[in-house]
C-alpha cells in the first residue's frame, strides 16, 4: 500500500514537473503575459488573490457546490451498486438508466436545470449527471469482486450481516472505493466549475473564470484561478488517500500489537 501510494505520488510529481516545464518553455517562447502568463506571475497573482474576500467566497461556494454534487452522486451511485449486486432486476434496470444518464449532454442539462433550481443546486445536479454513473460502475466492479463462496460460507454459518460487511466486504472493496472517491471528487470539482461558467452562478470560481476571460480580459487572473482549482482538486484527492492509508496502517498496527 505504502509502495503504491509512493509510486502514485511520484508519478503525480513527475507529471506536474513536465507540465511546468512545458509551460515554462511555451511562456518563454511566446513572451507575452496576456497570451500565456509566466509561472512566476501566476504564482504571485494566485497568492495575491488568496486574501481577497471575493476569491474566498467564490472558492467557498464552488467547494460547497462540489461537495453537495459529490455527496448526492456517491450516495446514489453506491446505493444503486449495492442493490444491483443484491438483486439482478435492479442491475437490469440500472444498466440502461445509467447509460442514458451518461449520454446526457452536460451543457444542455446545466442550462435546463438552472431554470428550475438555484445557482447552488444546478452545478451540483450537473455534477451528479456526470459523476454518479462513474461511481455506480466502479462500485459495482468492486462489489462484484467479492468472492461468492465466501459469502455463501458466511450465510451457512449464519454470520451477522454487520460482520459480513465489516469483515468480508470492506477489506475487499475499500481500496477501490477510496480510489473512486478520490478521483470522482476532483472530477466533480471540474464539472462544477464548467457548469458555473455556463449558468453564471453569481458567486463562484467558474463565474470568476468567465469574468477573468471576458470582462476583465486578465489572463494572469484566469491562470491563477485555474491554479487554485488544480491545487484544491489535488489536495482533496491526496487527503483522502493519505487519511485512508493512515487508518489502514493503524488497523494493521493494532492487529500486530494484539498478536
Amino acid at each position, binding site marked *: 500500500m505504502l509502495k503504491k501510494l509512493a509510486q502514485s505520488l511520484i508519478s503525480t510529481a513527475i507529471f506536474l514537473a513536465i507540465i511546468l516545464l512545458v509551460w515554462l518553455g511555451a511562456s518563454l517562447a511566446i513572451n*507575452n*503575459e*496576456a*497570451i500565456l502568463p509566466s509561472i512566476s506571475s501566476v504564482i504571485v497573482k494566485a497568492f495575491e*488573490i488568496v486574501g*481577497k*474576500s*471575493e*476569491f474566498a467566497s467564490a472558492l467557498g461556494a464552488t467547494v460547497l457546490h462540489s461537495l453537495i454534487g459529490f455527496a448526492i452522486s456517491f450516495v446514489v451511485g453506491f446505493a444503486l451498486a449495492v442493490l444491483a449486486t443484491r438483486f439482478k432486476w435492479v442491475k437490469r434496470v440500472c444498466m440502461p438508466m445509467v447509460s442514458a444518464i451518461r449520454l446526457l449532454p452536460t451543457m444542455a442539462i446545466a*442550462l435546463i436545470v*438552472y*431554470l*428550475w*433550481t*438555484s445557482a447552488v443546486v444546478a452545478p451540483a445536479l450537473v455534477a451528479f449527471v456526470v459523476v454518479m454513473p462513474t461511481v455506480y460502475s466502479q462500485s459495482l466492479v468492486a462489489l462484484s469482486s467479492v468472492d461468492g463462496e465466501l459469502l455463501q460460507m458466511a450465510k451457512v454459518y449464519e454470520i451477522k450481516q454487520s460482520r459480513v460487511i465489516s469483515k468480508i466486504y470492506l477489506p475487499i472493496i475499500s481500496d477501490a472505493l477510496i480510489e473512486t472517491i478520490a478521483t470522482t471528487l476532483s472530477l466533480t470539482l471540474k464539472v462544477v466549475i464548467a457548469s458555473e461558467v*455556463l*449558468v*453564471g452562478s*453569481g458567486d463562484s470560481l467558474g*463565474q*470568476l473564470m468567465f*469574468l*477573468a*476571460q*471576458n*470582462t*476583465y*480580459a*486578465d489572463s494572469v*487572473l484566469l491562470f491563477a484561478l485555474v491554479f487554485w482549482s488544480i491545487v484544491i482538486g489535488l489536495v482533496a484527492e491526496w487527503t483522502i488517500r493519505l487519511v485512508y492509508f493512515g487508518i489502514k496502517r493503524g488497523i494493521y498496527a493494532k492487529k500486530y500489537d494484539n498478536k
Partner: protein
Amino acid sequence: MKRFLTCLVVLVICMVSLFSGCAVPHKAQIVCPDGAPALILSTLKDLDVSIKVYENSNAVATIGAQMVKGEVDYAILPVSNATTKNAQSNNQYVMAGVITHGNLYAIGLEDLGGVQNLVGKSVGVIQLNSVPGFAVKKMLEGKGIAYCTDYAQKSENNVYLFNIQPAQAMSHLSSEVALDKKADVCIVAEPLCSKLVSAKGAIVCFDVQDEYKHFPQAVLMVKKSVQNSALTTKIINALSAFDAQTVDVNESVQFVQSKMSSTTSLVGISRNAIVGSNVYFTHARTCKQEVIDYIQEIKTFDTPLASVAESVTDAFFME
C-alpha cells in the same frame, strides 16, 4: 572553380536581395465578433481587406489575443476589452471610432408602463456581471431605484437582478421556472430582441439606451502602423456611410454569414433588428470624451481582483 563558386554566391545574394521585397503582399485583416457590430461590415465589401467574423462564445477573447500579438490591422471589440487588450499589446492600436452604441432592450409578456414600475419586480439580465449588467445597474442607479442580486434580499422596494442566458429569456418569462428564476422583464440585446418579439410574442417594455444613455459599446481599433494609410481612410469612410434605415438587409446578413467560419445560420435578422442595434460609426474625434467618461463610469465595477477596463488618455484615440 573558385571563380565559379564566387560568382554563384554573388548571384544567390543578388537574387535574394532582389526578391526579398517580393514576399506575398500582406492583406490587411479586420476581425469582428458576430452580433450587432458585424452588421456594419457589408459596407467594406468593395475594399481590399480580409474580413473574419468570430461567432463562438470566445470571439472577444480570440480577437483580444490577436490584438495583443499585433496580428491584425483592424479589430472590432467591446470598448472595455479594447482598452485592456491595447494596454497589453504595448499600445500598438488606437481607437478609430465607436460602431455600436448600446443595443439592450427590456422585453416582457405584458406592458410594464415605464421603468419606475420595475420596483418590486425580477429582471433577468444577459451577462449581469459584464457590460450589459453594468448598463442596467447604472440605469437603475440613475433613476434612484435600489437593486439586489440576491433573491433573499428581494423586496417591494427594490429590483431583483439575476443572470440569464440569451436563448433562455422566454423561459425565464414563463411561470414554469423556479421563483428566483422567474423574470417579469428580461434585458436582452439586438438582434435577439427582434427575433423574440416577432417569433415568440414578446413585447418591448423599454429601450435601455433611452433610459440610461447611448453608451459606446463595440469600437474599431486600428494598428498605429496603418492609421494613416489610404485603406484606413477608405474603411472609415465606408463605415461612416452605413445607414441602418437604408442598408440592404439580406445583402448585409449574407455578407456577415460568408465571413463566419462556421455554418451557423443568421436567420431572422430584420431591419428592426439592425435599426435597434444602434449601429453607426462615430469617429474618435467626436466621441473621445464620451468614451473617457464611460470608461470612468464602468470602472466603479472594478473589484479587488481585477479591473473591468483600463483608464484611457488622448493617446488612445486616433486623430
